[in-house]
């Protein structure tokens, strides 16, 4: 059975809008660069590599924009491309075991803690920074698949089906990775929970 979208030349209004969005490379970069950089930074833990991967992601998306079928959002599509590049980097990293990352996501938060945050008190900022630091440390200890699924779900707000497509694995496997990651984060953050309850 053929859907309308499968008929040659037919493009839904949403798809046309997405293709127009992909054509404007500068607008695309301006809109998504921060979110992509955050995702890649948490995945590879190296600022320089993350920036390079984000640039390559946009370049790849722009050159392959005609192949965008419109069955997911532009953000999810970009995230999938970035994920593939991260995977390639991980594969190369296996052969460069002597190399250590220049900077980690946790170090990035050290820098971010000095950034102005509107409307929150210094105490709240310190508390937020401490929580973020703890979660990012837990994420560093997760396996690649668990971390990626966790980030895609809770950071990029992607649906399980979208994550499954991006990671090329069944939804049931995605769920398994996700729940194991949540379990690990839950276990490691038990300290915060106990601290909070004892404060009360």
């Amino acid at each position, binding site marked *: 059975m053929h859907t309308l979208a499968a008929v040659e030349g037919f493009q839904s209004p949403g798809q046309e809008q997405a293709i127009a969005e992909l054509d404007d*490379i*500068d607008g695309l*970069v*301006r809109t998504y*660069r*921060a*979110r992509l*950089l*955050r995702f890649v*930074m*948490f995945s590879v833990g190296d*600022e*320089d590599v*993350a*920036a390079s991967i*984000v*640039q*390559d992601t*946009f*370049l790849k998306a*722009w*050159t392959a924009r005609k192949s965008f079928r419109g069955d997911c959002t532009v953000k999810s599509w970009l995230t999938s491309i970035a994920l593939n590049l991260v995977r390639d980097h991980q594969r190369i990293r296996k052969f460069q075991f002597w190399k250590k990352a220049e900077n980690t*996501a946790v170090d*990035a*938060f050290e*820098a*971010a*803690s000095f*950034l102005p*945050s509107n409307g929150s008190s210094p105490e709240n900022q310190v508390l*937020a*920074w401490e*929580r*973020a630091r*703890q*979660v*990012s440390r837990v994420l560093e200890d997760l396996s690649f698949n668990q971390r990626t699924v966790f980030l895609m*779900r*809770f*950071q990029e*707000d992607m649906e399980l089906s979208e994550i499954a497509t991006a990671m090329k694995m069944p939804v049931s496997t995605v*769920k398994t990775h*996700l*729940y*194991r990651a*949540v*379990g690990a*984060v*839950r276990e490691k*953050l038990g300290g*915060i*929970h106990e601290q*909070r*309850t004892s404060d009360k």
Partner: protein
Amino acid sequence: MSNGHLTNEQLSDLLTCTNSASRDHLKVCSQCRGEVECLSESLGAVNHLGLLWAEHEARRRVPLPLPAMERWRTRTLWAVPATLAVVWVVILIVNQTHRRSEIPQADVTPSPAYTVADDNLLMANIDRALNAEIAPQVPVSELRRPSESAHGYPAPRMVN
């Protein structure tokens, strides 16, 4: 629910606001409520601070226009003339080969009979004219008498 508390699956669904059934449990279980709040706040902090950092860094590290894009454009600028040159050379070679194969072969058709007879007659006439021009040669027997000179007198003897 395990041991009367939320499982990882239920907690995960609550964090993404997809499960309303587990919300009833939060009303009666302060431990799970505290855990969900804590996780939710922690994730919110990670996302917020991560985005703050990324927005700050992206302006510096992923500038506009993209350096990768510029590199690609430069490569493309080189690639287009190079490709055109290669295509031009290929066309030239193909054209040359095609031309060579199109050169007509020489016709080796036999001459008509009258042409051959005329040619033979012409050659015979040339032979005759040449023979008439050349003087009669000295017979070989005359050349074999060394004691006589050409004018008939005996040749002088050499005395030591």
